[in-house]
């Protein structure tokens, strides 16, 4: 280890080196120091070496201490309850892909880690220090885990990362969070960081200020706006999305004259999300002139007259004049106009009809797809639930050509404008009518845990799929989601599905057993999640 005790051993150290040299060369070449009389030279050497070895070991003393590291900063959060700490260790010990192939009945613990971290962070617990190495290792391998893992890891995780190069990412990850000062008394620091900071630090600073005092962020930005590089201006402008309000209009109007086209179109997009802005009313005027109700036909019908040119005023307001390959110029301009026009434009323009009535109107000359798609984008941008509802249509609608003629991706976005309960109801209805094959994307935008009707719809649909004789892995995406998102309270409802059913004639071979296995894993995972939540709650009471 360690150093040998010195003063009395000084000659002994020399004697030991002498012995080592002799041993290396061999006693045939070099005579060892005189041993006991009558001993052959090699034996005498071994005798002496044995004495010296034991003597050296017995004389060992501690080494001088190296420079101690700075102590880790205090973590003020309350400690994690013991049971939750064990659960965390278990989740962290799970390495994905160890099972290989079929997933069997055991839950996929790594998939539960994000949920666990979110819950622990919501409770505001501090991690058990000894869990930090495994936590940092997990975050190292999975970038999606990093924000939650580092937030949970807290100051000691950053301290630890400073000692191990493998975890250096933890020091890079949150420069803004560390740098963003909390109070107004730090105005000087803010100013200095804004003027001298690295780009990422400045973006983080701006975002952090914007989330607290939107006006202060705008002022900070307008102060240096003229001197920023175009790419930087784009990123900074983007941060105004948070807390966007009519107060921002003047600044955004100015940005409409920016040298960079991307900056201009982002500014226009932001302005169009402010229905009261001057840009919105200009767009409204343009869009109105393109769409009208034609009463001369049998039923009232929408007729579309797309713009004939994209003038410089339109271009200044963010309309991109050049259509992508394969698209007509006029329909391209129309789409952009309608998307940017406030949705409030339409009831007034179209005979006082409600959004639902407007969407139900037939559209002449094949313009329906273009027009509805533009309204979808507008509803998402303006977060207009009434229009979103109208465009989504009834969830059970079976006709693909009706008002529901929007893509799944658009539907998912439209659902995002509805509140959680309405969203869950709509998706539940959709699944009940159409089954699971197209539901994955829609389920992804639903709140976790799933509301009861939604959960029931998913389980029913899985059950129907089983009875239809298909294999569970055709639904592995939905199964995986269900394991993470189904309300654990639903677990007992699934008990009836755990048995291996009798094989039906037309069923795929062995499918029944695989389904029972898949449902077992689902139930086991739900119970685990319920236990996880309970462990995190536990200490609150105690």
């Amino acid at each position: 280890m360690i150093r040998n005790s010195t003063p009395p051993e000084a000659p002994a150290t020399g004697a030991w080196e002498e012995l080592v040299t002799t041993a290396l060369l061999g006693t045939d070449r070099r005579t060892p120091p005189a041993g006991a009389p009558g001993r052959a030279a090699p034996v005498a050497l071994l005798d002496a070496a044995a004495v010296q070895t034991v003597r050296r070991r017995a004389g060992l003393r501690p080494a001088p201490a190296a420079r101690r590291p700075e102590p880790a900063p205090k973590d003020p959060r309350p400690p994690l309850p013991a049971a939750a700490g064990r659960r965390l260790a278990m989740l962290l010990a799970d390495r994905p892909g160890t099972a290989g192939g079929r997933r069997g009945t055991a839950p996929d613990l790594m998939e539960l880690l994000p949920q666990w971290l979110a819950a622990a962070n919501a409770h505001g617990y501090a991690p058990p220090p000894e869990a930090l190495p495994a936590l940092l290792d997990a975050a190292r391998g999975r970038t999606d885990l990093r924000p939650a893992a580092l937030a949970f890891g807290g100051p000691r995780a950053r301290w630890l990362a400073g000692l191990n190069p493998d975890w250096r990412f933890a020091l890079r990850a949150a420069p803004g969070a560390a740098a963003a000062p909390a109070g107004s008394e730090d105005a000087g620091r803010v100013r200095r960081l804004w003027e001298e900071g690295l780009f990422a630090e400045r973006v983080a600073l701006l975002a952090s200020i914007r989330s607290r005092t939107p006006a202060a962020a705008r002022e900070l930005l307008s102060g240096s706006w003229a001197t920023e590089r175009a790419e930087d201006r784009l990123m900074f402008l983007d941060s105004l999305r948070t807390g966007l309000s009519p107060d921002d209009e003047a600044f955004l109007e100015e940005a409409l004259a920016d040298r960079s086209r991307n900056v201009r179109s982002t500014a226009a997009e932001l302005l169009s999300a402010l229905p009261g802005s001057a840009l919105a009313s200009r767009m409204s005027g343009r869009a109105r002139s393109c769409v009208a109700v034609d009463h001369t036909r049998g039923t009232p019908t929408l007729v579309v007259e797309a713009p004939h040119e994209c003038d410089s005023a339109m271009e200044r307001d963010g309309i991109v004049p050049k259509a992508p390959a394969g698209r007509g110029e006029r329909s391209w301009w129309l789409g952009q106009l309608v998307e940017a026009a406030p949705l409030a434009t339409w009831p007034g323009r179209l005979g006082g009809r409600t959004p639902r009535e407007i969407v139900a109107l037939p559209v002449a000359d094949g313009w329906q797809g273009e027009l509805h798609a533009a309204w979808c984008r507008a509803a998402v941008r303006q977060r207009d639930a009434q229009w979103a509802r109208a465009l989504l249509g009834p969830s059970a609608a079976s006709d693909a050509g009706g008002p529901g003629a929007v893509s799944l991706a658009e539907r998912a976005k439209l659902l995002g404008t509805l509140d959680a309960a309405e969203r869950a109801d709509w998706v539940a209805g959709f699944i009940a009518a159409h089954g699971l094959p197209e539901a994955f994307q829609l389920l992804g935008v639903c709140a976790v845990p799933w509301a009861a009707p939604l959960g029931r719809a998913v389980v029913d649909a899985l059950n129907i799929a089983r009875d239809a004789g298909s294999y569970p892995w055709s639904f592995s995406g939905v199964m995986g989601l269900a394991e993470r998102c189904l309300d654990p309270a639903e677990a007992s409802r699934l008990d009836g599905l755990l048995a291996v059913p009798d094989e039906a004639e037309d069923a795929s071979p062995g499918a029944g057993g695989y389904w029972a296995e898949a449902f077992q894993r689902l139930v086991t995972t739900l119970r685990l999640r319920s236990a996880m939540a309970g462990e995190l709650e536990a200490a609150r009471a105690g």
Partner: protein
Amino acid sequence: MTQQGVRWSADQVLSLAPDAASRKAGSKLGAAGPWSEAGCSDEGAVWGLCKGSGGRPYQTVVDLAGGAGPAYKCSCPSRKFPCKHALGLLLLWTGDDGAVPSGQAPDWAGPWLAARGERTARKRSEGAADPASGSADPRAALRRAERRAERITAGVTELEQRLADLLRGGLAPAEQAGYGLWEETAARMVDAQAPGLAGRVRELGAVPSSGPGWPVRLLEECALLHLLGQGWLGRERLPEGLSATVRSRVGLPVSAEGPAVRDRWLVLAQYDTADARLTTRRIWLHGAGSGRTALLLSYGAAGRAPELALPVGQALEAEVSSHPGAGQPRAVLGERFASPAPTRIRPPGVTTAQAAARYGAALRDDPWLESVPVTLREVVPVPDGESWQLADATSDATSDATSDSALPLTRAARTRPGLWRLVALSGGAPVTVFGECGHRGFTPLTAWPRGEEKMVTLC
């Protein structure tokens, strides 16, 4: 005896797991999902059917009664002991949510439980009635022992010759010689019925490839082997304690003949090492009353976990008998009087200087000792170039001149994940660390932060 009728805690159950993988797999099975027909008896038996991936569910039975600790039976093909099904079943049982009701053991569990009950009872009565049972013919046993001693003496003589030859020609060529030379010598020692010597000789073969400074280490190991050989040849003239140490180091079987010490034993650490043939488990105990530190060894065939498993951080009331030999920490576990339970017992700690001195003193009784068990009080893990050390905390340096000293960590300890757990636990503040302290440095095994009860395993 087990505390009958008392359900264990999940911690107690998990402490039975042979390794981390089993702990994890067992926890996954500790939910009602895959289980059916689960039940338990007042005598401390638990059973259940676990649905696996195959058609037939596994039959799992655990017997918690009996002085020798829990026993397990499962129809699964796992070589782990206890298997994940047994752990999962016990976790389900600890959950106490009605999933494992009291009842009669079913047909597939009853006979095994009954047979176990009988065997325990028979052992108990035999133990009481016939203490002198054992060797049938003491004279034959003596003759066998003499013959074996002769063979060992022949082996030692041959080994001494080989060592002398080696040093006559010099160690320098040993780097090229490779393992062959040593393997053959080790085989000769196995033939001589001296497994202790064989093991040491085999390790010699690895020294020349062990990096810088290998000649010094090789000379040390050769010298200690020579010392052991000389000790064997002169064992009649040695003090009894040292003579017993020599006999056991050479590899003669020894039985724990020390008096059984009944105590509350804190489980300080448990870790396994494995080679191609054998898994060796070391369990360190600290006696609350006796203040003794005892080492339990148990073995499993390659790839199979040893049977004995004790929960680190908990204490059990049990009898422990020590092996012969002066200063030997090795002991065997006798009867257990209660299952492990959480405890506040902590071994008293020493400074780094005292730890080094303790190792030095222990060499008097056993010069072949690699390390001694030591609890370091108030030390801070400190990075030291490529390595780490444990430094005395200066914060409470009174007048101790050596308080700014440190023990380096052993090479093995530096590469284990436990090192980072230790560093994280400390956070730059003093911690108490139990481990093995020897001439290669300190190997931390368990640590607990200042003022806190919990123990954290590092191995």
